[in-house]
C-alpha cells in the first residue's frame, strides 16, 4: 500500500478511458481499471479487472479488492459506456436493455461501491459521463440520450445523498470525440451535430480530462451535482 492517490476508471481498454488511465499513471496515481476484455496497459501502478460493469457481484468484488489492496479510493471516473445510433422505431428492446445495463446500471453500481470506500475516509470525487446528445435531443440517439439523462439525474440525487460523507458527484458531458464510440456514425451526421455546438469542432480527450481535473481538484469541494457540457451546448 503506498501513499499515492487511488483512482478507479471504468472502460480503460481503449478510447478516453485508456487515455485517462495513462494520464493518471503518468501523474503518479495508482489506477484501477476495468473493461469486458483484457487490457494491454502494463504499468506497475495499474491493475485491471475484466468484468461487465453491470454485473453487481463482479463490481462489489472489484471494489472490495481495491479496499484490501489500496486501503480506499480517492476518485472514480465512470467512463464506461456504449452508444446506439438508430431510429427509435427500428430499435430492438434488447438494445435498450444493453445500453441501460452498461450506462445506467454500471454507473450506479460503481457509484454505490466507490462511495462506500470513500465514505470511510470522508473524502471522494466521483465523475460520471453524460453526453451532449441529451441536451441536444439528437434524433437517432433516443436510447443513448435517455440512458445518459438517467446518469445526469443519478448524479444530481446522489450528490445530495453523499455530500455529508465528503464526496462530490458531478458529470462531464463530452461532445463527439473521435473514438470507436462515434466511429460508426456517418460523417454528415457528425458534421450536423458539431454545427449545433457553440464551438464547432470535435472534442478532444484533453477537453474531457480538463473537466475531470476541475471536478477532482481538492479545491472543488463546494462543487457537486453539476454537469458540465463541452463545446458550448
Amino acid at each position: 500500500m503506498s501513499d499515492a492517490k487511488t483512482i478507479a476508471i471504468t472502460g480503460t481498454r481503449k478510447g478516453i478511458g485508456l487515455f485517462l488511465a495513462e494520464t493518471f499513471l503518468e501523474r503518479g496515481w495508482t489506477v484501477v481499471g476495468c473493461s469486458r476484455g483484457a487490457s494491454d496497459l502494463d504499468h506497475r501502478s495499474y491493475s485491471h479487472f475484466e468484468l461487465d460493469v453491470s454485473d453487481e457481484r463482479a463490481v462489489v468484488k472489484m471494489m472490495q479488492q481495491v479496499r484490501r489492496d489500496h486501503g480506499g479510493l480517492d476518485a472514480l471516473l465512470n467512463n464506461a459506456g456504449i452508444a446506439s445510433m438508430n431510429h427509435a422505431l427500428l430499435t430492438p428492446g434488447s438494445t435498450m436493455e444493453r445500453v441501460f445495463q452498461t450506462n445506467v446500471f454500471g454507473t450506479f453500481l460503481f457509484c454505490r461501491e466507490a462511495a462506500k470506500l470513500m465514505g470511510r475516509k470522508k473524502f471522494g470525487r466521483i465523475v460520471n459521463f453524460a453526453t451532449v446528445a441529451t441536451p441536444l435531443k439528437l434524433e437517432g440517439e433516443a436510447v443513448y440520450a435517455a440512458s445518459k439523462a438517467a446518469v445526469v439525474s443519478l448524479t444530481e440525487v446522489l450528490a445530495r445523498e453523499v455530500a455529508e460523507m465528503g464526496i462530490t458527484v458531478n458529470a462531464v458531458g463530452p461532445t463527439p470525440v473521435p473514438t470507436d464510440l462515434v466511429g460508426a456514425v456517418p460523417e454528415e451526421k457528425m458534421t450536423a451535430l458539431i454545427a449545433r455546438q457553440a464551438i464547432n469542432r470535435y472534442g478532444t480527450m484533453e477537453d474531457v480530462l480538463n473537466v475531470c481535473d476541475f471536478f477532482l481538484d481538492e479545491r472543488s469541494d463546494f462543487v457537486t451535482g453539476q454537469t458540465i457540457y463541452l463545446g458550448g451546448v
Partner: protein
Amino acid sequence: MAIELEQALTAVKNAVAEMNMSLEADKQISDDLDAVLFGDGSPLDSIGLVNVVMAVEAHVADGTGEDMVLASEAAMSRKRSPYRSLRALAEYAVEVSGENDAAA
C-alpha cells in the same frame, strides 16, 4: 460456502467497535445485539446507518473472504428491516451469503 451466524455476529460487533472509536460519547452505537439499530430510539441517522452497513460489509469480507452487499428493499420496514437491530443485520448477512452461494 455460506457464512455462519457466529461469523456474521462477530463481523457486526467488530464493525460497531470500529465505528465507536470515532464517535462522540453521546453518539455511541450500542453493541447490544437486540437494541434498536435504526428507528425510534436509535442515535443513528441515515448516514450513520450507511456507515454501519458499509463497515459490516467490510468486516464480513475481511473475516470470511465473502464480498457481499447488504442493501435491502425492506430498509424502511419497521418489522422486516434488516437494519432494525445488529442481530437482524447479522442474520441478513447470513441470508445474503446463502443466496450468493446458491447463485454461484
